[in-house]
């Protein structure tokens, strides 16, 4: 069907004017009406892909796949054309499990195209029950079928598929081995490194073999990969670089030290390697670029810093670029002098941050300018870099940011100043000199918190005064500062102003005060300590009845940290109360667990709370609770509708270490579909089955 000829230079419009009419007509067809399925089946051969997709949607809207399957299988084998067969295949994949038996039948003797299509659809359905039948096809005489089967196994996954794919690597059929490698990569299963080394000697298999090395934890994999980044073929080098990026994402620098050394050795034998890596940094494939950035860092030539820095134009590469520039060492600063002005602000701050980590003071003016700028992301990165630079000349600018109305500026500035103060006595003194107030001066909240981290007993009067400041944020910060000092074992038992803050009109102040008292009480429990004063303990207990849940929660946690056993009853009531706010119930359970007083009956009630965080606290506490009831609680929780609760229960079962739970844990594992939960259950089963009964 074609429309009238278009005028020269004009863009042609879709030339099937009836398509929309047919599309709308299909949308009105009802597969449940008598003859509906047959009418839809007839339209499945429509020349328009949109109309065919509309048919598929209508067919799939039928509540029972049984009458739909024959329609689809008929279309699959029809002579109507590839579009019709593809639409039917798509629909069968979406039908899912109900189609699997008929598809498995069609893997048997029959036309090659039918068998191949059936294998492809089974791959789309991802039913592990098909793995065995598909595995058997890997030795079929039909090459297309072998290819379809190996690809399908790569989608289905599971132990049977993995075994078949690994076995296929021993085949004499090179396309099959290639397909198996691709499938294993999709499943993120790395064959043994020695096997990959052999396979990488076959040119056609080298690229996927190199990529799979990125999934291997074997030391041998690193050795092979080091040679891979110097491969004469660019595409093979890129595959190796992808593997490097994968390894860098999940292994520590120390783990990768042998790879780094291997790359340097490879460069000795291949002088072009640095230039190749620099070219690869500009790859459109981000994984290749990231791998190349890592390689350039390992090669350690600061003259390559500009190419590395330019990679930071891609936001996603900035973490790698930051590390790489830092690793290039002190010569990086001069090498970047000409490049920095050309970089975008985001890339430039990355480069500056790296130089700051190298202690290159020349970056100070640029960083100060960015820290004073309006762009929040740049400001945050620049502030952090100033903290790492360790240059005292940054202190005034950072201190000025402490009063910034945006917590995104004041918070990082305080963190940067704390980082500076931690570098030594001189820097600490400088920070304190700048951040301690003049007498009767008022401090912004961020400054108070900073003093709590880096100050000492000399700052106590400041905090006590600030507890009575008219600004709530200041009062909160003052309580937090006292808490921070208490955590460093500085400060008196419990100042009156802090107790008064438990009655503050603002809930955030009351909560902060409770937290601070809790930390003070915890510090007072140390040998030689006097414990929390009775008055403070009474006030905390009274705060368990505060109108605000956050305050009650803070009080509960505080009592737990203080070890006030006389309030166990009140905490148990909070933990198990039906309808208790989740933060309160969680805190109460945690407090009881901290005191070793989490009774099974209380935990059982908490485990029935509708909020999963409360249930998880109960589960964590049950790991150490005595008695069989705690074990039952964990097994129940391991069947919870929420995956995170089931996972927490699995971990608690492992932690409990009771071999009597092993059989039940194994049954749960066999039924578990969530991979994260299954992993935790598998760990639990391993632990429990190793223990003597």
């Amino acid at each position: 069907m074609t429309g009238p000829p278009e005028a020269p230079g004009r863009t042609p419009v879709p030339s099937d004017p009836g398509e929309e009419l047919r599309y709308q007509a299909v949308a009105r067809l009802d597969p449940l009406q008598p003859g509906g399925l047959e009418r839809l089946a007839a339209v499945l051969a429509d020349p328009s892909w949109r109309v065919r997709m509309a048919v598929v949607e209508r067919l799939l809207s039928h509540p029972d796949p049984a009458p739909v399957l024959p329609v689809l299988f008929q279309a699959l084998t029809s002579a109507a054309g590839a579009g019709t067969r593809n639409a039917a295949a798509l629909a069968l994949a979406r039908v899912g499990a109900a189609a699997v038996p008929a598809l498995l039948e069609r893997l048997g003797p029959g036309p090659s195209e039918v068998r191949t299509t059936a294998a492809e659809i089974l791959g789309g359905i991802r039913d592990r029950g098909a793995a065995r039948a598909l595995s058997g096809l890997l030795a079929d005489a039909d090459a297309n079928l072998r290819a379809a089967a190996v690809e399908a196994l790569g989608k289905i996954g599971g132990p049977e598929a993995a075994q078949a794919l690994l076995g296929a690597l021993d085949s004499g059929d090179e396309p099959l081995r290639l397909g198996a490698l691709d499938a294993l990569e999709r499943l993120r299963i790395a064959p043994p490194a020695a096997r990959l080394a052999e396979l990488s000697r076959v040119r056609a298999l080298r690229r996927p073999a190199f990529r799979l090395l990125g999934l291997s934890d074997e030391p041998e994999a690193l050795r092979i990969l080091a040679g891979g980044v110097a491969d004469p073929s660019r595409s093979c080098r890129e595959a190796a670089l992808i593997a490097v990026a994968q390894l860098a994402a999940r292994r520590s620098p120390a783990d990768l030290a042998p790879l780094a050394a291997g790359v340097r050795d490879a460069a000795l034998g291949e002088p072009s390697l640095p230039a190749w890596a620099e070219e690869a940094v500009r790859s459109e494939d981000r994984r290749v670029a990231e791998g190349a950035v890592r390689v350039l860092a390992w090669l350690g030539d600061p003259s390559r810093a500009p190419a590395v820095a330019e990679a930071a134009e891609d936001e996603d590469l900035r973490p790698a670029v930051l590390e790489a520039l830092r690793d290039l060492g002190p010569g990086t600063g001069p090498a970047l002098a000409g490049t920095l002005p050309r970089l975008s602000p985001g890339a430039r701050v990355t480069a500056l941050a790296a130089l700051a980590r190298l202690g290159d003071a020349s970056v100070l003016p640029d960083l100060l300018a960015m820290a004073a700028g309006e762009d929040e992301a740049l400001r945050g990165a620049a502030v952090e870099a100033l903290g790492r630079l360790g240059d005292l000349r940054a202190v005034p600018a950072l201190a000025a940011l402490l009063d910034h109305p945006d917590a995104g500026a004041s918070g990082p500035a305080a963190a940067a100043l704390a980082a500076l103060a931690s570098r030594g006595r001189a820097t600490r003194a400088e920070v304190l000199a700048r951040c301690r107030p003049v007498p009767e001066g008022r401090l912004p909240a961020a400054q108070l918190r900073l003093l709590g981290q880096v100050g000492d007993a000399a700052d106590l009067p400041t905090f006590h005064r600030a507890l009575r400041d008219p600004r709530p944020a200041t009062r909160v910060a003052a309580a937090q500062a006292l808490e921070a000092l208490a955590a460093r074992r500085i400060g008196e038992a419990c100042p009156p102003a802090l107790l008064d803050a438990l009655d503050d009109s603002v809930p955030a102040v009351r909560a902060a005060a409770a937290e601070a008292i809790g930390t003070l009480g915890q510090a007072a429990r140390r040998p030689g300590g006097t414990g929390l004063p009775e008055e403070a303990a009474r006030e905390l207990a009274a705060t368990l009845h505060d109108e605000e849940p956050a305050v009650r929660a803070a009080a509960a946690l505080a009592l737990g940290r203080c070890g006030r056993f006389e309030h166990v009853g009140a905490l148990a009531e909070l933990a198990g109360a039906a309808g208790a706010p989740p933060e309160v119930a969680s805190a109460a359970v945690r407090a009881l667990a901290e005191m070793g007083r989490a009774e099974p009956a209380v935990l059982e009630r908490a485990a029935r709370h509708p909020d999963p965080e409360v249930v998880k606290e109960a589960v964590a506490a049950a790991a150490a609770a005595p008695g069989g009831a705690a074990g039952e609680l964990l097994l129940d929780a391991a069947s919870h509708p929420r995956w995170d609760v089931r996972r927490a229960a699995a971990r608690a079962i492992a932690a409990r270490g009771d071999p009597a739970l092993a059989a039940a844990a194994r049954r749960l594992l066999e039924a578990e579909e969530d991979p994260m939960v299954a992993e935790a259950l598998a760990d639990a089963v391993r632990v429990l089955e190793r223990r003597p009964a």
Partner: protein
Amino acid sequence: MGPVEFRLLRDLIHEHCGIYFRDELRYLMERRLGPRLKVHGLADFDAYHRFLRYDAQRRAELDSAVEALTTNETYFYREPHQLRAFASEILPMLAEARQRERKLRIWSAGCSSGEEAYTIAILVKDSGLFEGWDVNVYGSDIARRVLAAARSGAYGGHAFRAPEAAAMKRWFRPEGAKWVVDDAVRALVSFGHLNLLDEGMMGLVGRMDVVFCRNVMIYFDIPARKRVVRMFRDKLADGGFLLLGHSESLLNVTADFQLVHLRNDLVYRKPRPTP
């Protein structure tokens, strides 16, 4: 950020605004949310998750988290093939199709800091086909902070890094280190805060001739993509165009749109009703 924290945070954010982060985007979530820990003095992402569930400031922080997660760096004249198709093929078609009403409406859905919306407006102006028409380019985004930047219309030199963008500078005037968009272009553009998944907000959006929604759908799961595309279909005039990012398609999402092979690119079009 471990896999457990990632999944918990992802689920929380999905529940809050419908945006969904695939497993491969864990690194992005960690990088974008890391600074939020420093803002609140939190030790780790587990604490951040609890903060987002229970703290009194949780709703505001969820909005801040979404902003941090969805704000991407962008620049003028991004994806030149598509913009060439828009300028040289789609605009002439619309000039002819709308010549009676002399009204043109374009939506930049997920406009970030405004570069896309202003690029579109400049292309409309440069075409010379719509002088005297009622033209509006509407830029919307879920993040309020980038909208403020968009409304300021002031950009650094790096926003013009695409080769084709250099010629656009004639529509900007230099002010200090920035380039500020000319009033003639600014007059064509408006900005608004919108979550594409919030059906209640869609009443604010009128009938559109073109929708640009580029590199936004990566944040949606399949059901959300279907909802958004259905909404785009409802908002588009008959024969209107939907332009997605170069790596995005409507495959497995909908067949409601025709796929049109322009000389410079492939685009989607809402079919006209058949007479």
